[in-house]
């Protein structure tokens, strides 16, 4: 229930929300947990395995119990920690892992079955039969033991990713972090101060401690205000730094404030990558519970959390509260509760010599041995020297001490060091290069010492960055010693919880040790301790203390498990922000894209490019109809295709020809100006890398084209060869792929079309096959290449890309007037298969020039990349799979790419494999399918019948081996 007094809430701003369908009211500044507690709701969830009733253990992001699902429908957000969910008007939250309801959960029968559900239960029980693993056991276990669920449909919420850079990143805005940021900012450094809370201040917001003579939270607010006024500071609240990575890079998840996240276009969360020269980790410490019987009852909370609920949110977590601890924090808790007017029924201090001035029932040297009340704490049992007392309490505040939040210092394989005096692990220096821990996360617990350590950490970072630090002194603050006597467990017969989230008890850890899972990493996996959303933040140290005891080792010797990013759960939606729909990959669109889409073309993805598959004409309902028509159109009239996607590289310089001779297998230095030559390029290992035409535009000026697929690879290869193999050669190259829009004009009527289109008709003598040169087109300087990928008399016409859209429309219109039109990739493919031209389907990386029948193109008169390796034994042998053409000769007429070839009567298995098919298409020119493929010793087997078997599609066909070039084998048409 809400109590009077000032906290960090705005009592005037009332907010309506629902939990499990019931309406409640909270106030601005509340978390879902504080608002529920204010409404007297302690039961917020059911435990993972035993379905035990649970309430919040913490008031922060370490929360293991109070996990809820926010919202409903496609964007529902499971496993939100009620302790960090910012309350807002209309918030809809639901409890998880219960059926049919939170109050009455049938699966709590698991709790009664607990003796059978201990450590290693799954491994022992669900072994046989194997067939049940996926179909029976897993679904059943998932239903019974689990967390919240995603909606399984497209998430409509927006997430964002962003980068930030700074000199100093300060992680955590408690006393140490605030002083570190202030010190560095005043020295002029560019500072990012990130904190997962809505308000900077850290523990100061939850305590009644004073700093500089005023309430700690007021001091924190004043420092934050000063920082936010400074241009060199970025204050990032609601931002949890979740990972430390190489070279000063940190990952951080920002939750946007609910009112902002609700705006149009706003993301729900933003995943930041922050690059910092130096970092100060001021992440504070996490309180740990003590394991005693039934210590998981709703109402049993960490003492620091109780202080937070009372001081910050002005919520009493029960009408009467008992406090139990092994350190002075327990006393402060009792004092704060009393000051707030909450009845404290007992203060139990496990240290025998403890004293107190507080006016309350005090039990030094005593322990809490049991907690009573199933759905909410009603009473506790206390063991004193005189026996067991049973005390009324709706809430028990427990403190087993504090664990420095060392997690980030371990993300690069660092291991923390044990400090006996505070009974906790602390970071080792230098575990993350450039990062220094300060304050409570370095094991420094008094407020004053934290403030000083923050200053010291900042000064160190400033000095390392070559900046002078101004003289900053720490304000006055509490400087008490941290007096603790370790207390991990209280003996008892019933279960005592270590890991609340995974239902791991003291017994489970002991059992693991007994069954020889003695390594802490093995214990973790056997018991599941430290897994799931909280990653054992409250339980790791306690569990390994129990393991150490059970195995007769010391805690440092037992060691910790590995801390890995992320510190807090991060939604995949945030990590992959933007990478859906249009944002999945950049779209590379040709200048003819809009006109092609206007014509109803279906677009294919080719790398990042989009190219038309075919252009449906009126009445055509199947792509094959369109493709057959387009092929025939090119063979009989004229077709237009956008070929701009092919890579184009401008090569210039005195050594340009020499360079091309070196990177290509064949020779380009002998090419005449104004002529084009086809070439193949080998990899260093002698296999074919790419092919394409190169035009000589001037004595020292070439234009090389690559395939669409390998454009980037070839450019990179050029750079490598030049920079690493022949840096002295005077040659320069640059991509001009985007500069030119280039269109194939192919077919017997192509010259008619161009003669009419160009400023000057083409002169036969000047434009033989493989000629190139400048042409004028309505005053625009264009380039014309008489080359052909179809086997027809054909040209490629290139204009500066700004004219691409206009030229494509013009070409298509003119082609249509001549009985032709635009054609797509499918037709282009059929045309080239008819001509036996290769693509990367054939030069797929495992084929040599010999294999594709181009061995003679590899010049032996000069050196070239890959030439020596191509001579290796085995790469030029008759037995190799060689490029062949195929046509169907049996009853089955369809040939499929990817099918394998076998001798007619051989079994279709691996041992009898003779080759495979790489490309197929239906040839309207010949009236049947044609294929290209590789067949052992294929060039000597033309005329032979082989069996094609496609095991994947279930197709078997008999086909005749033939020359790859079936259309116009002499090449008369291209020269015509």
């Amino acid at each position, binding site marked *: 229930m809400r109590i009077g007094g000032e906290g960090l809430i705005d009592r005037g701003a009332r907010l309506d929300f629902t939990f499990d369908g019931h309406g409640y009211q909270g106030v601005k500044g509340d978390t879902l947990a504080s608002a529920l507690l204010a409404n007297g709701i302690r039961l917020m969830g059911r435990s993972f395995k035993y379905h035990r009733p649970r309430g919040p253990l913490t008031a922060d992001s370490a929360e293991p119990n109070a996990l809820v699902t926010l919202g409903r429908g496609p964007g529902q957000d499971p496993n939100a920690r009620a302790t960090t969910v910012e309350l807002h008007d209309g918030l809809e939250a639901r409890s998880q892992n219960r059926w049919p309801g939170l109050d009455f959960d049938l699966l709590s029968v698991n709790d009664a079955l607990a003796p059978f559900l201990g450590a290693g239960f799954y491994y022992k029980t669900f072994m046989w039969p194997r067939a049940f693993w996926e179909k029976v056991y897993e679904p059943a276990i998932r239903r019974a033991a689990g967390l919240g669920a995603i909606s399984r449909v497209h998430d409509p919420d*927006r997430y*964002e*990713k*962003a*980068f*930030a*850079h700074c000199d100093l990143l300060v992680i955590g805005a408690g006393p140490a972090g605030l002083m570190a940021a202030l010190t560095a900012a005043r020295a002029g450094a*560019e500072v990012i101060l990130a904190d997962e809370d809505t308000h900077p201040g850290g523990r100061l917001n939850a305590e009644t401690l004073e700093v500089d003579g005023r309430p700690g939270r007021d001091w924190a607010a004043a420092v934050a205000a000063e920082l936010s006024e400074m241009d060199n500071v970025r204050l990032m609240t609601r931002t949890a730094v979740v990972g430390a990575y190489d070279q000063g890079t940190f990952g951080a998840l920002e939750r*946007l404030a609910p009112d*902002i996240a609700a*705006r*149009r*276009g*706003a*993301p729900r969360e*933003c995943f930041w*990558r922050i*690059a910092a020269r130096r970092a100060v980790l001021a992440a504070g410490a996490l309180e740990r519970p003590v394991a005693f019987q039934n210590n998981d009852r709703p109402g049993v909370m960490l003492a620091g959390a109780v202080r937070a609920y009372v001081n910050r949110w002005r919520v009493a977590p029960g009408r009467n509260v008992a406090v139990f601890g092994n350190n002075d924090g327990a006393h402060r808790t009792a004092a704060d509760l009393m000051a707030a007017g909450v009845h404290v029924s007992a203060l139990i201090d496990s240290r025998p010599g403890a004293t107190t001035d507080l006016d309350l029932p005090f039990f030094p040297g005593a322990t809490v041995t049991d907690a009573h009340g199933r759905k909410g704490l009603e009473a506790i049992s206390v063991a004193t020297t005189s026996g067991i007392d049973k005390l009324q309490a709706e809430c028990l505040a427990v403190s087993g001490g504090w664990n420095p939040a060392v997690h980030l210092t371990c993300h690069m394989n660092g291991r923390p060091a044990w400090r006996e005096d505070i009974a906790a692990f602390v970071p080792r220096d230098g575990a993350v290069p450039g990062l220094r821990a300060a304050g409570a996360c370095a094991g420094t617990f008094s407020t004053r010492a934290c403030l000083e350590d923050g200053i010291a950490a900042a000064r160190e970072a400033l000095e390392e960055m070559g900046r002078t630090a101004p003289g900053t002194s720490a304000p006055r603050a509490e400087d008490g010693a941290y007096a603790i006597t370790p207390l991990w467990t209280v003996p008892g017969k019933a279960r005592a919880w270590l890991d609340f989230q995974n239902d791991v008890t003291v017994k489970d850890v002991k059992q693991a040790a007994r069954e020889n899972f003695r390594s802490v990493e093995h214990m973790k996996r056997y018991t599941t301790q430290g897994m799931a959303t909280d990653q054992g933040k409250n339980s790791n140290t306690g569990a390994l203390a129990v393991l150490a005891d059970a195995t007769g080792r010391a805690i440092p010797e037992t060691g910790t498990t590995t801390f890995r990013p992320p510190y807090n759960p991060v939604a995949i939606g945030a990590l992959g922000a*933007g990478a859906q729909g*249009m*944002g999945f*990959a*950049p*779209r*590379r*669109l*040709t*200048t003819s894209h809009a006109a092609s889409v206007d014509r109803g073309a279906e677009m294919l993805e080719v790398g990042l*490019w989009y190219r038309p598959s075919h252009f449906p004409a009126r009445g055509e309902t199947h792509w094959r109809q369109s493709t057959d028509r387009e092929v025939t159109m090119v063979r009989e009239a004229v077709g237009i295709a956008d070929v701009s996607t092919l890579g184009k590289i*401008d090569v*210039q*310089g*005195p050594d340009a020809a020499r360079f091309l001779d070196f990177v290509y297998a064949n020779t380009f230095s002998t090419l005449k100006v104004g002529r084009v030559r086809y070439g193949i390029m080998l990899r260093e290992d002698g296999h074919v890398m790419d092919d394409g035409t190169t035009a000589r535009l001037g004595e020292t000026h070439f234009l090389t084209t690559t395939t669409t697929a390998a454009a980037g690879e070839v450019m990179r290869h050029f750079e490598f060869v030049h920079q690493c193999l022949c840096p*002295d050669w*005077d040659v*320069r*190259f*640059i*991509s*001009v*792929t*985007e*500069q*030119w829009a280039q269109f194939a004009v192919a077919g017997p009527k192509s010259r008619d079309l161009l003669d009419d*289109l160009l*400023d000057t008709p083409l002169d036969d003598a000047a434009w033989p096959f493989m000629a190139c040169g400048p042409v004028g*087109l*309505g*005053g*625009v300087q264009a380039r014309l290449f008489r080359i052909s990928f179809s086997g027809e008399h054909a040209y490629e016409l290139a*204009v*500066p*890309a*700004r*004219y*691409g*859209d*206009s*030229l494509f429309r*013009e070409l298509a219109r003119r082609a249509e007037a001549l009985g032709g039109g635009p054609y797509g990739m499918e037709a282009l493919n059929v045309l080239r298969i008819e001509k036996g031209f290769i693509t990367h389907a054939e030069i797929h990386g495992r084929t040599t020039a010999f294999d594709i029948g181009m061995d003679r193109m590899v010049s032996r008169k000069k050196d070239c990349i890959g030439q020596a390796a191509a001579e290796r034994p085995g790469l030029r042998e008759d037995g190799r799979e060689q490029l062949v053409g195929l046509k169907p000769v049996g009853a089955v007429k369809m040939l499929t790419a990817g099918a394998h070839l076998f001798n007619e009567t051989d079994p279709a298995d691996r041992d009898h494999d003779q080759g495979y098919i790489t490309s197929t298409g239906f040839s309207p020119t010949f009236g049947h399918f044609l294929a290209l493929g590789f067949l052992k010793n294929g060039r000597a087997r033309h005329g032979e019948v082989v069996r094609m078997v496609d095991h994947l599609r279930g197709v078997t066909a008999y086909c005749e081996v033939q020359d790859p070039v079936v259309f116009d084998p002499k090449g008369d048409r291209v020269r015509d």
Partner: protein
Amino acid sequence: MTELLAKTPCAGLLPLRAGTTTLTEVDLGQLTSLAPYRGQAAALSDALHAAHGLAVPGPGQTTESDDAEAIWFGRALVLLAGPAPDASLAAHAALTDQSDAWAVAELAGDDAAAVLARLTPLDLRASRFPVGATARSELAHMAASVTRTGEQAFRVMVFRAFAQTLAHEMRTAMDGVAARRTR
């Protein structure tokens, strides 16, 4: 005679506006890449200065004259923007026309840097990336050139074919940043 119509890379896509940020297509005039031949870097700079009144910029820098700008564009590569390149330059460098290869847009407004922070890993702090600084980097998975043209203004260049993606990614980032603005 055929009349071909010119279309700019971002025609129909820009301008965009969200909150105080605008994204506008920019016409830089003629774009020519200058790649100095072996040992010709200094001579190219002299020739550039004589012909167009600006020096070859160092890595990460731009130089400007009244009618021309030279943008560092990569290893031993400069992009001359504005005029047609003087013929004298060809003696010292490989010249290649790139006027149609790039979609060029200016992002301006108080949130310009915040918008770019959603799209590129570049450190765009004014202390590291002052007015006139330029970089080749990644912008939403596209190879890009980014130049600071004003305190709150950046020029971004991506391949022409990426214009639609540029507009999409920019719009998304601009909307997200604008939504955070105090209202």
